[in-house]
């Protein structure tokens, strides 16, 4: 692991840096352009930078939307992990037709086009009086992401050596306690990764937010971003500036979990 990187590794890293660095650079450059410059200086670095887009993006609505995004993304991540972790563990440790059917159903649910779920969910929420509530959006987002999270978590639980658990149960620990104190710590790399992914996906989800909130006062950041695009045109600098602003919290969350992942390495390596 501490060996020096070979030429192939460097080449792959260079390719990826270009592939992901150039679009980001382009986003940043555009966010500092005036809308007149967007087309005339498409592929050049020479333009007069302006911060108009950022100044316009910062209004009272932004903070409110940020709060809303945090609530939705955190709530969704918590709910998804709460339900998907046991489900993934259960699916990893059982056999027979029932878990197979469960896995198949999860894939079918994962395949459902999100657009096809909006209208039925709208009807359900209308009946349950959950329209226009943050809780409703969290429920919908969780239903959207649980199949994904469960499928993704399952191999991480399978990778936990069963001997560990058996040692636990010989000591007389209950299944629940074995799961909590032995399995979960070993699978934490996977849980953290999946948790991060769920948080990011919930952060960016906007179809449900736009449809289930009836008033824009409760829109999260992702829905504000959608406002930059309309039938009458796209405010390119505004879109890019808002994209940068709304993604900064993402970067913070990711950097934090990245540290955890790194520190968790030694704990995770049990054998």
């Amino acid at each position, binding site marked *: 692991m501490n060996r020096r990187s070979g030429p192939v590794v460097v080449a792959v890293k260079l390719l990826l840096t270009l592939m992901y660095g150039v679009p980001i650079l382009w986003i940043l450059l555009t966010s500092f352009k005036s*809308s*007149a410059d*967007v*087309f*005339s200086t498409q592929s050049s670095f020479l333009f007069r930078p302006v911060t108009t887009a950022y100044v316009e993006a910062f209004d009272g609505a932004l903070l409110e939307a940020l709060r809303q995004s945090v609530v939705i993304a955190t709530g969704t991540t918590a709910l998804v992990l709460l339900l998907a972790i046991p489900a993934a563990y259960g699916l990893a440790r059982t056999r027979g037709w029932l878990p197979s059917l469960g896995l198949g159903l999860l894939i079918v649910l994962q395949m459902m086009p999100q*657009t096809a779920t*909006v*209208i039925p969910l*709208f*009807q359900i*929420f*209308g009946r349950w009086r959950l*329209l226009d509530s943050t809780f409703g959006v969290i429920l919908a987002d969780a239903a959207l992401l649980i199949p994904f999270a469960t499928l993704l978590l399952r191999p991480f639980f399978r990778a936990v050596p069963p001997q560990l658990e058996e040692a636990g149960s010989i000591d007389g620990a209950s299944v629940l306690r074995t799961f909590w104190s032995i399995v979960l710590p070993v699978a934490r790399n996977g849980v953290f990764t999946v948790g991060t992914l769920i948080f990011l996906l919930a952060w960016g989800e906007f*179809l449900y937010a*736009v*449809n289930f909130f*009836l*008033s*824009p006062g409760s829109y999260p950041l992702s*829905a504000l971003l*959608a*406002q*930059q*695009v*309309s*039938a*009458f*045109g*796209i*405010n390119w600098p505004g879109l890019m500036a808002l994209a940068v602003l709304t993604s900064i919290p993402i970067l913070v969350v990711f950097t934090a979990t990245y540290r955890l992942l790194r520190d968790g390495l030694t704990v995770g390596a049990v054998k």
Partner: protein
Amino acid sequence: MFTTRSARQRRRALALTSIAAAGALTLAACGSSGEEAGAGSSDDGDAADGELSGTVTVWHYFSEDNQVGLMDAYAEKFESEHEGVTVENVFVPYDQMNSKLVSSAGAQTGPDVVVFNGAEAATIALGGALAPMDDYWADYADAGEFPDSVIHQIDGTTYAVQGYVNLLGLWYNAEILEEIGVEPPTTLDELEDAMAAAAEAGHDGITLSGLPQSQGEWQAYPWLSAEGFTYEEPDAGALEAGLARVRGWVENGWLSQEAVTWDQTVPFQQFTSGGVAFAENGNWQMGAAEADAGFEYGVVPLPLGDDGQVYLGGEGQGIGAFSENPDLAWEYLASTYYSPEGQVMAVEQVGSIPARADAAGDDAVSSNPLLEPFAASIEQYGANYPAPNIPPAAVADVQLTVGQAWSAVLGGQQQAGAAAQATVATLEGLLAPQ
């Protein structure tokens, strides 16, 4: 932004161009115009009794500054006229508007007022999201000021009326035309000669949208109709001629084939960034032109000959089917979108053409030289959007079919002839009375 526009208007202040008024009057002539209703007399009927209170929720899909500003100004106007009334403007992304309206209707809820793409009136009304407006409209003293083409009727019931129209014209870069020494074209031949000369001088000829959907169809229709294509009698030969002509522009290098990926905004942004002689685009771009174009520009009607038609588009305004206070919703519309002052506000803020005959004669219209050619286009080429003979349930299908053919030919996926044959065959099925 608003101040710069006024300044420009003063700078360019020209004499009243009678054509603008004439164009709008022609609009009115199709309707049952008769009496000359006094301006502003419409909205004071119920306002005086002061019984109205509550909140008007207005769903719209505007996010452009000027258009949002107009919505705010309307809200302010109505609130100042009615003590205790609040107007809540709710932005819904354009892509989500129709499905959100229809799913809300399914849950027996929805806004008080809907501002939507007029072309999609049938979809929304059939989806049960709009309340019939017949009673209000029948009692409306100023109804005669509105032409038929802005009144959306589905199966004999009025569901929405447009306060203004939007349409396409031919924007030109005056500096390029001067450089190549041509006047703004009045015929298709002149247009093609000018584009050839512009290409010769190293410029692009024209920008337009070739997107395979309703925007593409909206932009294609003028050129297709110029060759005699109509939805009343769809003719494959005429359609082929229209498609082949514009494909020819691509092959000659006057129009970038990239147009198939452009919506209506991008080609105008290309135009304002310079280097393009012409743009087929709408009156709603005046703000963008003013803000972004670093050259002299102007507008003429699209040069479409005798058969050519230009759609009269714009947003329809209707009352939500599940509005708790439809009377208040109607008052809001009567005071804003449908009133002469409200329509003049729309001219000044957004540059849209008033639907009312009296508002079209206002100084705000006549003092704006860029509005003149659009008003002239209404008179010369104005056509109902969508074509009245398309069954309401088939409108979206027809637009998608023609939009895809337009894009397929411009993008070289299909030959004009094959695309025209296939399209007309599909259209015959869609246009048949059901």
